[in-house]
């Protein structure tokens, strides 16, 4: 795409910072745009040196971790430099007694989790692909999974962050202690900023005791209304489940291991022989002693159809976390949308999905956090008469128009061709001009992820 960064002069300059072996050509594309060069610094200081060079040369930089979320966002204008955090890979500090951990941005969260598991501790984040996704990437994309219901997102337990600004300053916010109000809360700015403000190089987390025993209760309902009424009952009860998910009638097809498909584009799902189930499910995960779990059984009553434990339980939660990946593994052209809703708007959003999807030749499937309004909506294109690129855009507009005020819906995955026709980010309840103010303060030349984020 770009000719600027291919000059050998630049390669030499980068090699002088990070070493010859760590400047390479990059094959992986970002929404169809190939980065000209990839560079892998090994310290925050090297990241700073690379960014100073990028600023001087006006190179557009895309920070990259495990590459699990790179296809989210607008089509980049160009990518001159892919800045990989793979060599920032140390568990810098972990003291089980303090319940805090300091991780380099390139650490894969699963690696840190297995170290913490030795002490029956964890960072309660079950975002998908943790064996690949890095700490920096998870923060930048504000990733979460079903545990967000019980513990909140990364913003609730990231207690410190180190990053490098576009002009090459290594800076930090927060610290290593669990309570700290010294200075601005820069963690909040970095989390969910999609690499548009700075390159995250290290982060500190509050660590939690990991529950010793959990059970999962699966409760089926014949209608969405009945499922949401049950959810409200749980919310009003004294119970405090770790997870509280809603699963739509069509979603269970994707809560299983994906079939091995040679070419996902040719994959045609088996046409259902019977009418699809109309069953909605509420799935709860609870932690505690035998007595506590017995209380859950009493409170939930006859609505519980199945109780899961052990491997079967872990498997279900892994599938729920990987729902979007499973959909995309089977339908490369599926569209995935994440919502931010109030608790009581979940029903309205699900009805809006049903209508918008059906009107535009998609089949809807949903899993999501019924108690926080963070739903993962899959729009699966019909095998017969699949939607055009324009239809993706009109479907999203129709869906957003049907959402109650104050909601937001981000298209996290869709065919890259469709991105030309609409804004994947959509509207935000937060003033966008204020976001631009922050962007200008930290990346005035707009060299970080230009064109990909909301600002």
């Amino acid at each position: 795409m770009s000719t600027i960064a291919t000059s050998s002069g630049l390669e030499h300059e980068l090699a002088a910072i990070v070493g010859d072996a760590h400047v390479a050509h990059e094959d992986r594309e970002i929404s169809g745009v190939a980065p000209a060069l990839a560079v892998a610094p090994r310290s925050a200081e090297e990241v700073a040196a690379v960014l100073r060079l990028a600023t001087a040369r006006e190179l557009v930089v895309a920070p990259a971790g495990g590459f699990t979320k790179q296809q989210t966002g607008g089509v980049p204008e160009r990518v001159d430099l892919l800045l990989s955090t793979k060599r920032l890979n140390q568990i810098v500090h972990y003291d089980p007694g303090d319940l805090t951990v300091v991780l380099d941005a390139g650490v894969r969260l699963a690696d840190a989790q297995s170290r913490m598991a030795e002490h029956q501790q964890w960072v309660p984040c079950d975002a998908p692909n943790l064996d690949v996704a890095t700490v920096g990437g998870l923060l930048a994309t504000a990733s979460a999974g079903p545990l967000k219901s019980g513990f909140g997102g990364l913003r609730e337990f990231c207690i410190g962050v180190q990053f490098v600004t576009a002009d090459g300053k290594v800076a930090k916010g927060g610290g290593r202690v669990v309570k700290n109000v010294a200075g601005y809360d820069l963690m909040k700015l970095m989390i969910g900023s999609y690499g548009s403000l700075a390159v995250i190089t290290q982060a500190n987390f509050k660590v939690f005791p990991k529950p010793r025993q959990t059970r999962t209760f699966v409760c089926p309902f014949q209608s969405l209304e009945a499922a949401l009424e049950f959810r409200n009952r749980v919310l009003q009860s004294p119970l405090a489940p770790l997870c509280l998910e809603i699963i739509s009638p069509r979603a269970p097809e994707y809560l299983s291991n994906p079939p091995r498909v040679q070419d996902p584009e040719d994959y045609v799902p088996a046409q259902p022989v019977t009418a699809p189930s109309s069953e909605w499910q509420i799935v709860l995960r609870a932690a505690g002693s035998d007595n506590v779990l017995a209380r859950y059984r009493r409170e939930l009553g006859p609505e519980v159809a199945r109780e899961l434990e052990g491997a079967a339980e872990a498997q279900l939660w892994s599938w729920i976390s990987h729902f979007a990946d499973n959909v995309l593994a089977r339908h490369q052209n599926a569209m995935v949308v994440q919502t931010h809703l109030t608790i009581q708007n979940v029903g309205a959003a699900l009805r809006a999905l049903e209508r918008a999807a059906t009107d535009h030749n998609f089949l809807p499937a949903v899993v999501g956090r019924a108690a926080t309004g963070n739903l993962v909506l899959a729009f699966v294109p019909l095998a017969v008469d699949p939607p055009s690129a324009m239809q993706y855009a009109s479907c999203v507009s129709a869906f957003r128009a049907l959402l109650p005020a104050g909601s937001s819906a981000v298209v996290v995955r869709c065919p890259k061709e469709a991105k030309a026709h609409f804004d994947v980010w959509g509207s935000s309840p937060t003033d966008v001009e204020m976001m631009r103010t922050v962007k200008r303060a930290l990346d005035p030349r707009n060299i970080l992820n230009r064109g990909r984020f909301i600002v």
Partner: protein
Amino acid sequence: MDAAIIRQLRKIAGQDAVLDRPEELMLYEYDAGVDKGRPGAVVLPQNTDQVSRLMRLACENKIPVVPRGAGTGLSGGAIARQESIVLGFARMNKILEIDAANQRAVVQPGVVNLELSNATAKYGYYYAPDPSSQKACTIGGNVAENSGGPHTLALGVTVNHITGLRVVLPNGRIVELGGKALDGCGLDLTGFFVGSEGTLAVTTEITVKLTKLPESVATLLAIFNTVEDAANTVVAITQSGITPAAMEMLDGWMLRTVEAAVHAGYPLDAAAVLLIELEGIKEAVEEQAVAVEAVCLQQHGREVRRAKNEQERQLLWLGRKTAFGAIGRISSSYYTQDGVIPRTKIPATLAEIERISKAYDVIIGNVFHAGDGNLHPLIIFDGRDPVQFANSRKASKEIMQYVLSVGGSITGEHGVGMEKMNLMPLMFTEDDLDVMVRLRNSFNPDSILNPQKMLPETRTCREITGPLPKAKVEPVAGVPV
């Protein structure tokens, strides 16, 4: 302040909403901390539109503006520098909406923290962050300072409970950040603005999360013969896998002082007590209470008492929450710190404080949020005695140096404000502070809003001087801890 400005302020906010007589302004020159500063005028706006017009007026005339809630802060955040206009939120004190089904409430900044919990109790909810000043402090002030409190150990501090803000920028623009949904697309500016100490914008409306009232609460008082045993117990409980709702420590000197003032029933001969609260469903609370008691006894606790009813529970907490007020009975002056340390460092830090206390011959009482490692050493001195005064300063400096040497923070919940501004370079590098200054300047370019707070004037790292721990003549009962 200039008479023409006063006239314009009255035109915007109303005749009776502007105070400018010296005897009126005197009431606004202090907070619950050590600093003082008399404003040029106090304005009591009644709505967002007035705040916007006031900000425009101030901006055009380059007059600094300092937002203020109830004045219970401990770091000078709401104290005027120069000839400022203080924006008092006493008249913007309405709960606008309680939306129990969505677990949210929308409030004006002047709503008193405890009033919100009282108003939502009938729906089975409360507002979780509970600064010790919760009977007086306002939600607006809590948002500015990102306030904590004893019960933030399990549930988090203010920022974990705010989902939306309406703010007025220094140029008068009214802006929405977030709303009732837990989060939204784009940058989390709501989270960023919480704890910005009134240096970015003036908050005029706040959307808060409501938390379900717990079904069951157990309050335990664990009594120890040595401070070390109590400190080790904190570490042991933290490691046991139980997260109490609150875990507070009072040392022997504090206990006796508190007991003399409020008769909370604390043992007079103990070296330290832990006040531990467990919340949740009753099955879990019962099991945890048994487990916590076992840990306390294993760590050589002398006795573990459990409040038998709500009245006993309230009494135990009364002692804790009025600890600072109790000091007023015995000392004319005290100074408190708000450092935070990693929890495994509590035993060593308390031993160090004890050593410092002896070395400088000053009394240092300890009453603090042990579960978070958030210390509040209270340095007692007679402000009229220059030797004691100087020693208290030296002791204070040594404690803070120690806190930072073990990887701590200068403030856990009181904020930086005027008081700790010059300590910032001890925690943050020049580049860290440069990024913060850039951000402040982009929202508050002329520093019209709360000038000379939080970010140090000079950014070179220098010796801890900090502001002087000045004599505080009359501590007010119930001031926050």
